[in-house]
């Protein structure tokens, strides 16, 4: 087991957003985190990278135990080093070119030499099909291109796991495909991924596990195929049905 997450709780003032979430992730797993809006999916993912502080919870990462509430600054830095995070709104550095966006973490945080960082960055940008836009600024790119650059920015630190927070939700429909293609390719290469998504095709065909959440609880979790073909819970059945109907 690469990543074990136990009993994550989070509350925003009176609103209890997470009521004890558990999740186990093996190396190479692609976990789709599904659920209706407001179910706490994004908050859960953000807690794993300390973008939100959980009120309670435990993480075992590569056999090392961390307290999601009380982790020290050094622990947070260690966990972030092993992970990458892809945001719904890309969050590229707007004052940096494509190449600089990808190298900044390496050169500034990692103290890597510029030449070496550039080499690694160009390679990562090639993987996501953005190596021809090295000197463009984010404002000159489409949403899909920005998101692919954001994925490359995550890849260069050699993360053990990549968290995706609704990576295609801000995109125009015709741009979703190019981002999903990159994610599918990463999955095929064996990258471990946690993906909060509304893309059912991706959840069904690319991910191998599903975590279905509602109202801050895990309703059902298990292999994707089983979840889609034989959902155990009434809530899951309704959700799948509503998604299928919305498509018609």
């Amino acid at each position, binding site marked *: 087991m690469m990543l074990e997450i136990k009993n994550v709780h989070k509350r925003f003032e009176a609103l209890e957003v997470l009521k004890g979430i558990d999740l186990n992730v093996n190396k190479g797993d692609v976990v789709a985190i599904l659920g209706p809006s407001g179910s706490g999916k994004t908050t859960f993912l953000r807690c794993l*990278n300390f973008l939100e502080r959980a009120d309670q919870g435990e993480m075992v990462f590569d056999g090392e135990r961390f307290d999601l509430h009380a982790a020290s600054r050094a622990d947070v830095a260690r966990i*972030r*080093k092993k992970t990458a995070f892809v945001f719904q709104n890309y*969050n590229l*550095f707007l004052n940096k070119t494509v190449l600089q966006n990808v190298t*900044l*973490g390496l050169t500034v*945080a*990692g103290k890597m030499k510029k030449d070496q960082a550039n080499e690694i960055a160009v390679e990562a940008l090639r993987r996501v099909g953005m190596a021809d836009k090295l000197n*463009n600024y984010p404002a000159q790119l489409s949403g899909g291109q920005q998101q692919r650059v954001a994925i490359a920015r995550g890849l260069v630190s050699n993360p053990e796991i990549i968290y995706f927070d609704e990576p295609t939700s801000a995109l125009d429909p015709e741009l979703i495909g190019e981002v999903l293609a990159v994610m599918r390719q990463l999955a095929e290469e064996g990258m471990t991924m946690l993906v909060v998504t509304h893309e059912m095709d991706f959840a069904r065909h690319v991910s191998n596990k599903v975590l279905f959440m509602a109202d801050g609880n895990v309703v059902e979790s298990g292999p994707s195929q089983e979840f889609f073909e034989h959902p155990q819970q009434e809530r899951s059945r309704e959700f799948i049905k509503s998604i299928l109907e919305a498509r018609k």
Partner: protein
Amino acid sequence: MNERLWNILVDSFPKLLRYGVEVTIPLTILSFLLALVIAVIVALIQYANVKVLRQICRFYIWIIRGTPLLVQLYLVFYGLPSVGVVIDAFPAAVLVLGFNEAAYMAETMRGALESVSRGQMEAGYCVGMNYVQIMMHVVLPQAFRTAFPALGNSMIAMLKETSMAATITVMEMFRQAQVINGRVYESLALYGEVALIYLLFCTILSWVQRFGEKRLATYGGNRS
């Protein structure tokens, strides 16, 4: 125009210009640099929401914005000596002008900092950078670009406000006009002349401002 008046204007012009270049402009630049440093610090404290210090910054802005510059100059130059703090006229003017304009510029900077999306900060953390690194490489460069036009306006305002230093005996351009006028009694001509020189300085500054704006990176956006 009679010949006497013309001669007065011609004689006084180089003198006024000299004080403009040698005193007014250095006073403006020094005060502006001081203001910029204070403004950035005050804005950063508020942006980072540092307890206590944040309250002190709000208090400072409240006091400065709520009292006239002229009164502040008098307090520092004529008032402080009675509690043993004696500051020469020129440094006193730099201090007061700097701290005064900084209160306004701090608000400009704070707004500019807040206009940089917080998501970029989160992205910075996720690629391993710390707060200071993110501020230096990502947030501050964008904030300065946003604040640039407003900071230029502050500098132009400050250039004109240096004339108030005349009231605390700083021998700058306007004070020099007063001195010359004391001899020749041609208020309209001399104050008109000094006004024109201020106008000239401000015009040059606004050219510089516009030029700078064009030259500054727009990060591929459409601001031109």
